[in-house]
């Protein structure tokens, strides 16, 4: 994905949740917590997004003990940079929106 593209809400919250290592269900809970209960990631959506984000190198799968089925993921440096760019883009969107709406 080129820089300047908008992330989906799901991608955004997955990246945000993975500042600290989490497993799949942990990401769903963290997303709900961060969004004050507004954003709920469905399991199928999250599962597909996780493999796509690993392929992009924005997150990585952490090595786990062989007896644990739970897979943990963490944000990479690349993912962090994407997140920072996105936050700046969202701020610009919100600022522009507020400025225009103030004139109404």
């Amino acid at each position: 994905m080129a820089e300047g593209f908008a992330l989906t809400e799901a991608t955004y919250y997955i990246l945000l949740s993975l500042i600290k290592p989490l497993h799949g269900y942990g990401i769903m809970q963290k997303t709900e917590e961060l969004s004050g209960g507004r954003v709920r990631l469905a399991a199928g959506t999250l599962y597909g997004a996780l493999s796509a984000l690993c392929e992009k190198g924005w997150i990585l799968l952490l090595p786990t003990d062989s007896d644990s089925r739970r897979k943990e993921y963490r944000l990479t440096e690349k993912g962090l940079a994407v997140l920072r760019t996105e936050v700046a883009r969202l701020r610009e969107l919100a600022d522009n929106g507020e400025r225009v709406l103030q004139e109404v």
Partner: protein
Amino acid sequence: MENRKTIRKWYWVWDFEKEENWLNEMALNGWVLESVEYVTYHFVRCEPGEYSVRLEMHPYDEEYRHFMEETGAEYVGRMMMWVYFRKKTDRGPFDLFSDIDSRIRHLDKIGKMLTGIGGANLVIGIVNSFSTSRLGFVNLLCATLLMYALGRIHGKKEALEKERLLHE
């Protein structure tokens, strides 16, 4: 009172959402899906509305099953390429897809499967039509049906893509 019942039923691939709705209506009426076999559903008594049921086209994937179970869903079974899950409603809402993109990807998956099987039937049908076999028309009939199904799935996908232009 009987505690179990078996219903033989099948559905056209483009009606998979209707099928899911029907399974949820059964659960609302106190019958939850317990296992699936080829065109056969087995239900067991439950409290009305105790469960939600979801189905999805997904190739066999142990990892996905564990992933779902971790979120509180139960694996019910699979029939051909379809996998069935259920979740107790008191453990929170149960959806497999929470945005348009993943719904589109799911339809893509169904479309690829139909294209694969449809294409194979088309080739076999053509080859058989030129050979001594008289069964070529069966494959061509299957291919036609599969192409029709592909069209229906594609229609659903287009509707979602149109929506996706405006929002997620």
